[in-house]
């Protein structure tokens, strides 16, 4: 397996979807290729960082407007 193949299989590798034979070939390549190890590791970190990022709380004005509008319209629906 070469570097280009590693990149093609990267998502499947990160998702744990690789066939065992391909997985073994890929891991052999990773053992000897530092660039690919870094790409795999930093791509994994990219995903983790986005997963872990907490959403910033809604700005107060947006939140108040959202709740007022929702409740007004939902109460109207419930009364209908």
């Amino acid at each position, binding site marked *: 397996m070469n570097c280009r193949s590693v990149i093609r299989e990267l998502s499947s590798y*990160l998702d744990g979807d690789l066939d065992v034979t391909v997985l073994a070939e890929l891991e052999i390549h990773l053992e000897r290729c530092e*660039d690919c190890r*870094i790409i795999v590791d930093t791509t994994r*970190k990219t995903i983790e960082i986005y997963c872990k990022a907490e959403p*910033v709380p809604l700005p107060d004005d947006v939140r108040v407007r959202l709740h007022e509008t929702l409740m007004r319209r939902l109460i109207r629906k419930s009364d209908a």
Partner: protein
Amino acid sequence: MRCRLETCATLLGGGCPPAARWGVVPTVMSAAEPKPLPSTIVRPDEGALVSSAKAGDLAAFEELVNRYEGRIFRLTMNITQNREDAQDATQDAFLKSYQHLDRFLGESRFYTWLVRIAVNEALMRLRKRRPNVVSLDEPVETDEDLIRHDVQDWGPTPEQRYARTEMNSILTGAISKLDPIFRTVFLLRDVEQISTEETAELLDISVPAVKSRLLRARLKLRQSLSPSFARRATA
């Protein structure tokens, strides 16, 4: 946080429980037995709140709004890249979810169902505002686009170098550089943890197209983030 990455054990000497691996989330919305999303998103009492809301309990529905408004607003903001559209899409997603709550049969998590509605609302607004941007065609890219990388190591915890607000700004900036068809797939698959099959169904594209876009999105984001996260050279 539980991580679903298969490679943790290999690369970092850590490990993730097999049940938390990616690719084991529900395959289709109609799956007989919904599998829970990670607890970081959905809490165990979600089902009880939905049942109460279905019975007309507005307070229960408002609790669901409180719980998910931040995530849904971030999702719609990331897709539309427009604050006004994101606000409208968020509001309409909650309204529609309440109005059609009787159609929600509990075959998936409520949050997953809400995300589907929100994505549709956001994409509709994005198409209206920028009709030429959201094309169904796959952009012409070659493997060369994928392999042109800088390969700087980031160190073990690059995110800890930044405060929360600054991190969010970096992450939002990187997402905004992605083509909408890439960022939407990334947001659904990796951030909202929707399965490949559901993402394909939701976006009306094939499963291979989801996989191809996801790979490109991940690599492009990695590349965009690299200047911020690469290990600083020491003097």
